[in-house]
């Protein structure tokens, strides 16, 4: 770029299966194989966690296992269960950081010359603004956190705090608290690759900081653009059917 920093503009995607599980995992059926068959199943994958395992505090490891059991359960009939049950991805909630980076969807980095870099994720149309220069603290917790950027040589470093506690890291139930602090590093490795690293710190949940890393690949198709994956309508039956009048029909043309 004219400002001397690497140009990260483009549509990128991770090709790991970390969204199913950050750690080593075998191929697995979905939560409802009796109706979803192989459609709901997930691929196997090697751990993207440095050292292989996430350093959970003992209570937190138990909660992660509970999360996994309840990953495809949703109950918005009362406040206590609203966020306690179910993977946020299952309910089309914003995925948080770093999860947005390794969802099986592309994302676009928009880098100009201003004090802002924008990242738009195809999944749920989630968007985050990375602010450079003197930036105030996060004013309120956010699903995608509060991102402050700086350059270290060729690397874009993004310091992310101010998270809502409800996001998960994957479908295996890996989770964090409101004390989550993520430091991401995007380093060009070729015109077609970025190396991605995220250091994850959360003194309430983990015994020490830990790190994930994997490459991001530039999507190369001609005229490629992000398309919409606005998934709210795909969850309305799941979340709200129980409050619906019996026999009510979706109007013509509505998607279900």
């Amino acid at each position, binding site marked *: 770029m004219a400002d001397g920093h690497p140009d990260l*503009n483009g549509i990128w995607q991770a090709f790991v299966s970390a969204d199913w599980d950050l750690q080593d995992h075998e191929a697995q059926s979905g939560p409802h194989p009796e109706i979803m068959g192989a459609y709901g199943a997930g691929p196997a994958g090697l751990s993207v966690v440095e050292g292989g395992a996430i350093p959970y505090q003992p209570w937190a490891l138990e909660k992660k296992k509970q999360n996994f059991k309840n990953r495809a359960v949703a109950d918005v009939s009362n406040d206590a269960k609203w966020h306690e049950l179910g993977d946020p991805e299952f309910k089309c909630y914003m995925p948080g950081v770093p999860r947005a980076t390794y969802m099986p969807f592309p994302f676009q980095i928009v880098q*100009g010359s*201003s004090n802002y870099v924008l990242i738009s994720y195809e999944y749920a*149309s989630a968007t985050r603004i990375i602010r450079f220069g003197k930036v105030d603290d996060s*004013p309120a917790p956010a699903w995608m956190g509060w991102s402050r950027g700086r350059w270290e040589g060729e690397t874009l470093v993004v310091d992310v705090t101010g998270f809502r506690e409800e996001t998960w890291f994957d479908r295996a139930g890996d989770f964090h608290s409101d004390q989550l602090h993520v430091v991401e590093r995007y380093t060009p490795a070729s015109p077609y690759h970025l190396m991605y690293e995220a250091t994850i710190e959360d003194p309430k949940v983990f015994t020490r900081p830990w790190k994930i890393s994997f490459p991001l690949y530039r999507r190369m198709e001609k005229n490629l653009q992000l398309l919409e994956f*606005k998934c709210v309508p795909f969850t309305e039956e799941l979340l*709200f059917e129980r409050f619906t009048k019996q026999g*009510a029909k979706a*109007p013509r043309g509505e998607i279900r």
Partner: protein
Amino acid sequence: MKHRFLTLLGILAMAIACSQSPAAAQAPATPAQKPASAKAATGKATSKAAARTAVPRTPWGEPDLSGVWNDATSTPLQRPSSVGGKDVLNDEEAEEFSKELEHNLTRDRRDGSAAVDVNRAYNEHWMDARRLKATEDHRTSLIVDPPDGRIPALVPLTGERADLKKARSYANGRFLAGLPDSVYDFSLPVRCIIRTDSPPYLPTIYNNDFQIVQSPGFVTIAPEMIHSARIIPTDGRPHLPGDIHQWLGDSRGHWEGDTLVVETTNFRADEGVLFGGANAATYKITERFTRVDATTLNYEFTVEDPTTWTRPWTARIPWTKIDPAEQMYEYACHEDNYDLVHFMSGARQREREGKTIPIKPADRIFDN
């Protein structure tokens, strides 16, 4: 400008749906630092030339539109009859007009009956204060064409569209009666599917913020509601194929002088996506973004749909730059959408108690 005069139900719906919106608690608005002259706003050639020299540019030579912009105003979309047909007011008239609009819109008024007063309990604390100020160009409507400042006459609807409109009016009626059958009786904003993110952009009660980030070959606009960035290619590529439809449509941009011109087609046909219940097959939005000075950007949009209106129509809204003093915050909606749960639980309870009422068909509650 129906969406400005929300019913209590609509307002409560938004209040609950937007309870996670930090912008509602943003600092009070600061006035625009430099008034846009009436000339600049009416697009006279002289002011355009003056603006050109002042327009900041990106390192790759395009006018720099980047920043956080706010489009709130009290100036109505359509010209009210009270201004006697005038399109631009003199200073004195404009002050009176602005005061009248503010009086009508403010929710901190305490006059009227107890019921009216209770309706205003969702008060100015939650609103964008800038929405109480008329545009500085002293226009009496945001619509600049047709010259009467009004949305043109409708084309009579054909059978199927007339049927759909009627079905929708009963859905709105169920919502207003507190008896929604299902999520489909709510508007798209209440369902947290789209809000101010689908063009054309119109001012609303709060969160009237748009962040523009520019990169070579793209202009990206991130409206505060609902966190959907519209990434607009300006590299001349063709539109998406006709069989792909999107909630925000499909936008292509190009530069005409210092103006970014964006054409958007490929909208989904769902009720509430298109302004005024237009026809997706023939609907097109053309937007023009022109930076006037350091703190003003003129936003103009033209709506065309020959199967809905008898002619195209155009509105112009000045945007005010608010960063770096103010930032745009995340707008989460679906993640804590208590509205749908509460409204429908209430409806089912009323049914159990036999407290239902006859449904009267009603116009749509939100246009955007």
